[in-house]
């Protein structure tokens, strides 16, 4: 009788520990994915900055616009930590001021070389938009998973940092505003 209880208890314990380790590895995978998403977001931001920088130094814009854009790129590249999202949002606003206006856009599209640079900036901006959506979605799911009671009590996340949401203004098109 007691043996049956012992065997059942051991079995339950074994099953439970399997379950826990499965939960832990799922959480671990989530953390890995969020990290990967963050890397692609960073890459997308870097790409956007260099596309903007190329447009700024193309010599096809008026010098005032060039200087504005170059300043925003420089700040976005130099920012870290909490300033990062602010600086990236500022770059978005500078880009919106440069190419968001339909009138200005028409003017820029007149020259083939410039049109290409503008298209590159737009493409890079679109990728930032997508990468940020994915990253924030994963970050949200990870945060939720970390707050589950079992995970919290057993600290299944180990040393992994809780991901932070990346908030920024990333709408280049004026109509989206």
């Amino acid at each position, binding site marked *: 009788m007691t043996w049956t209880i012992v065997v059942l208890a051991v079995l339950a314990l074994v099953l439970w520990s399997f379950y826990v380790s499965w939960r832990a590895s799922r959480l671990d995978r989530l953390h890995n994915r969020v990290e990967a998403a963050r890397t692609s977001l960073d890459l997308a931001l870097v790409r956007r900055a260099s596309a903007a*920088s190329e447009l*700024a*130094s193309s*010599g096809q*814009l*008026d*010098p*005032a*616009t*060039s*200087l*504005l854009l*170059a*300043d*925003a*790129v*420089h*700040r976005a590249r130099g920012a870290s930590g909490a300033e990062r999202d602010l600086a990236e949002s*500022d770059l978005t*606003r*500078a880009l919106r*001021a*440069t190419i968001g*206006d339909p*009138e*200005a856009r028409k*003017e*820029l599209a007149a020259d083939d070389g410039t049109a290409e640079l503008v298209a590159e900036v737009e493409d890079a901006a679109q990728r930032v938009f997508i990468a940020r959506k994915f990253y924030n979605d994963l970050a949200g799911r990870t945060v939720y998973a970390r707050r589950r009671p079992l995970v919290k009590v057993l600290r299944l996340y180990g040393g992994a940092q809780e991901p932070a949401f990346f908030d920024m203004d990333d709408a280049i098109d004026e109509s989206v505003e």
Partner: protein
Amino acid sequence: MPVRIGIVCPYSWDVPGGVQQHIRDLAETLVELGHEVSVIAPADEDRPLPPYVVPAGKAMPVPYNGSVARLAFGPLSTHRVRRWLRDGNFDVLHVHEPAVPSLSLLACWVASGPIVATVHTAMRKSRVLLATQPVLRSALEKIDGRIAVSEAARSTFVEHLGGDAVLIPNGVATRHYLRGDPLDGWPGEGGTVGFLGRMDEPRKGLAVLLQAFELLAPERPGLRLLIAGRGDIDEQRGKLPAALRDRAVFLGEVSEEDKVRVLHSVDVFCSPNTGGESFGIVTAEAMAAGVPIVASDIPAFRDVLRGGLAGELFTTGDAAALAAAAGRLLDDPARRAELSVAALDAVSDYDWGTVARNVLSVYETVILGRTTTTTVGIAH
């Protein structure tokens, strides 16, 4: 011979600011001197503008240099500047703050011919400017005559663009201050000492004046203080002994018109600054109102007061010395009248008329240096 002058303002005309004020005073003085002036500035077309201002469309708020600035740029602004240059047929083009990404930079880029540039604020050398240097250089290289309003602004030219600039300090619109109606009931029988400036900024020295008032008040029962400027009134009033509190009147921040009236409501104006002034515009404005001045002995005030000939100087930060100097003046109407005349004479060096003449000689130098093109045109 009248000169046709085109002036470019980089900042919104509708927004108050130092550069806009400078351009307004300069333009009006040049017109008074008989020259033709046209100013192009970002401005709301629906708002009434002075006859000499041509609107370049609305300025856009954009992040620049760590804050949000209202600037005009892009193809539309470029078109407007080009049209203005073509219609104006100017003898000389005068751009302000050419390193700010706005109309002035655009005008440099688009124009050919004699160009004069004035720098108002100091800018540190940045990587940004280096990154866009080819674009910027082609615009800024065209500047023939450079003016800086201060030593700090001059260093911007030296650092960013190489070369040097003429120093022509800001002017004081002295005629605005010459006449004014005293506020009702001022200066009163017992005499009034006045102060204008930020109350909560220690360097403006209000604390020194309040201490001096404590020393002066017992012997002069009618003496009052008239104080105007931003800051917490209760906090400042609290620094005085209870018995003296109703003899110090705090107006808080006042409008430009009321400022003139305040200056005409006092017997003695006090500038107790303990440092940090490069020129002392408020002191110069008080001088332009013909008020006898008591000022601390800092280099800026020593300069503008001609080493004490145009106003009393007292040991900086010394309340007893201030009380003694102010007391002497309050007791001696003849000396006050003498200082009033001396102050009006001294401040005329800083009058816009004088400043505008200096700017005109820069224009003339630049125009004379050109032998081929006579007027400002469009490049390429």
